[in-house]
């Protein structure tokens, strides 16, 4: 039995037939600088169910075949952002990628995300990624201390809702061809987190962030390839957010909705 028990949906027929499992081949790009000169691809056969996730497959390998296989994971349901990796050439979270959604007639290729220094197996150095994040001043900057909450209308709150979903998994940034060739580029995730504050009606430092992103390594490096939007496991429209930041840089001011408050 796999770690995650398999279960038919509420409307599934009441048959007692055992649930079918499959042998799936994963080919994983392994590397440990302590023992290897360069990365190598290693095959593993794993018995899996259709509803298992790639994370389950990696755990089965680590727990039953080779304990040295190394990867990050924590929540296992797509909210902590630990396990972004390249699965069949696409950036995804291992815990949100189900076997049934992959073609298992062929081997599944798994490797670390690209563009960040490879540390070991599926683990990369996240420090450059977080350094870019920190550079866009990703925190609310507002003067004065209100007596209670700062008032914000439903429409104003809605304006930046999409970019508040970011879990900093780096799937977007490490899917960006510009980032692969230019590690200095801020990358989509940092711009998404700048967007989250630029379009927040309570924030007063939009111009500071727009100036930062008007830099040569800022938004203008974006070539609108949409890889980032496709990679985002939270469904954030990353390319759209970048486009909105570009527009705000040109206009000099973000289009934050006017207050449309209903009086109490």
């Amino acid at each position, binding site marked *: 039995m796999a770690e995650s*028990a398999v*279960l038919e*949906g*509420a*409307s*599934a*027929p*009441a048959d007692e037939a055992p649930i079918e499992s499959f042998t799936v081949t994963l080919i994983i790009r392994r590397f*440990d600088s*302590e*023992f290897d000169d360069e990365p190598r691809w290693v095959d593993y056969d794993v018995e899996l169910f259709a509803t298992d996730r790639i994370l389950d497959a990696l*755990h089965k390998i*680590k*727990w039953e075949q080779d*304990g*040295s296989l*190394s990867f*990050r*994971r*924590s*929540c*296992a*349901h*797509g*909210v*902590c*952002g*630990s396990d972004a990796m390249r699965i069949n050439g696409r950036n995804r979270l291992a815990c*949100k990628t189900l076997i049934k959604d992959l073609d298992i007639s062929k081997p599944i290729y798994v490797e670390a995300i690209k563009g960040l220094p490879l*540390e*070991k197996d599926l683990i990369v150095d*996240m420090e450059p990624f*977080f350094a870019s994040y920190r550079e866009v*001043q*990703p*925190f*609310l900057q*507002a003067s004065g201390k*209100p007596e209670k*909450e*700062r*008032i914000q*209308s*439903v429409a*104003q*709150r809605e304006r*930046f*809702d999409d970019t*508040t*979903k*970011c*879990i*900093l998994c780096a799937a977007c940034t490490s899917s960006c061809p510009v980032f692969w060739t230019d590690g200095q580029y801020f990358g989509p995730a940092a711009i998404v987190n700048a967007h989250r504050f630029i379009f*927040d009606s*309570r*924030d007063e430092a939009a111009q500071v962030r727009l100036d930062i992103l008007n830099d040569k390594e800022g938004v203008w490096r974006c070539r609108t390839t949409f890889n980032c939007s496709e990679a985002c496991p939270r469904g954030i429209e990353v390319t759209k957010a970048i486009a909105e930041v570009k527009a705000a840089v040109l206009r000099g001011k973000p289009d934050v909705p006017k*207050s449309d*408050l*209903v009086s*109490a």
Partner: protein
Amino acid sequence: MDFEDGAVIDGVTYHQYDVVIVGAGGAGMRAAIEAGPQVKTAVITKLYPTRSHTGAAQGGMAAALANVEEDSWEWHTFDTVKGGDYLVDQDAAEILAKEAIDAVLDLENMGLPFNRTPEGKIDQRRFGGHTRDHGKAPVRRACYAADRTGHMILQTLFQNCVKLGVEFYNEYYALDMVMTEVDGVEQPSGIVAYELATGAIHVFQAKAIIYATGGFGKVYKTTSNAHTLTGDGVGIIWRKKLPLEDMEFFQFHPTGLAGLGILLTEGARGEGAILRNASGERFMERYAPTIKDLAPRDIVARCMVQEVAEGRGAGPHKDYVLLDCTHLGAEVLETKLPDITEFARTYLGVDPVVEPVPVMPTAHYAMGGIPTNVSAEVLRDNTTVVPGLYAAGECACVSVHGSNRLGTNSLLDINVFGKRAGNNAAAYAKTAEFTPLPEDPAKFVRELVESTRNATGTERIASLRKELQEEMDKNAQVFRTDESLAKVTETIHSLRQRYQQISVQDKGHRYNTDLLEAIELGFLLDLAEVVVFSARNRKESRGGHMRDDFPKRDDENYMKHTMAYLTGDPHSADAADHITLDWKPVVVTNYQPMERKY
């Protein structure tokens, strides 16, 4: 021993900080935001801060803001006490409910994007056990950001740590607390941590230490908890022979995705979702006629298990019940409950918009933990403070949750008591001197790491862990009996013996997660034993601890906290040879225990 800050001696790096915080979830980062600007502060965290499990919390954070209807902190206090089945320390609950209001406003002022009312204020929704005027009807008290309130809290706290320049040691596992004998008493003098990236050992000498390490839900198989919630912090405190309080009380959240345990927020029921059995009956009407599906979690979880046990479960194996959200409409689901809607679609292939979702209780939250007073100071017995040692959040037991925590009170707890811990630790550190480190403070961790890395036995970590988790699910879950607890006691003992024969395959020094899983299992085994031993001793049913063989609450004999102490050789066969239990009185202020009806 003496050293310069940053010195490397025999391969060990020595650091000095006024305050060291272990853990970077909600409680740890809230503490850091207070302590950081005041004194030299470090946060040691086994995960990047934004990976912490606070981020998985969904539904909301309680505070009697009265933004959408009449409410008061006194009602909130009462609900917390009653929800905890009167095992709550009422002075602490009052602080929690009073300070809730500022805790929410603090977060909003820091930037948290709460959902808003039409007037632009923080919106509030209903949640289990939170009522108007002492139980008359559900009240809208939970402040929320869609169904990712925990995510927004974690992000907001991290953002503010970035703003303040808080120093993080990311992916450093704290594996020991160094104690130094001062005037005949053991005092904490530092933390020893293992750096995941390199395998290097670091000693952090500190004037004050704050534990904010979260829970240990991974003692169970079916759990909403992250893989990393292995109770390392609580386990270290235990091994240092400091007590643990109320460990028998574990919360099983009613609505885990069936078979998987992934959390579906109680906020779904707050928005109007209904639990149904196989015949479509809204069974909670029978058990809690006034607030029905919004009864506290312990009650709802028990009712669900009972429905299944009595043959009214749904599905081909009649082994779950259904969470019906279909009448809420696509818009409410997409805007107020988008994440859980996606979880059901992704992991079960069930679309909550058109069909009910299979759910069963999932191990969720430890009410018990490291005993503290309301100042977040750790206790070495019922009343004596360990100077300079603090704990906050799920790893701590204040006790604001008693025997059953109300939903939305944990996001509150981490903010209220995280802030108190940070402020009090900073104040302490300003006047305290460093407690000297003993000679070779890293000795224990160096030996632990080396012996574990070199372990070449025959037992696989994963098999031992799987057996522990499965047996805990079978025998120490929603319903327990002396027989079931005796059985799992045996299992734990045999697993502890087999743990001596483990093998670790990864012999490397870099990112050795194989080694860490082995060490984590050691903590899980220790804590599971304390949970079960404490549970066997409490021969009554209260809150999250339901004894089938003692189905009634017994205030005369058991309205008191359990205090467990490690007093012998932890490897002895009989847990009674090394665990000693004592009691601690419950603080009662305004509310005398009553029968708990909803």
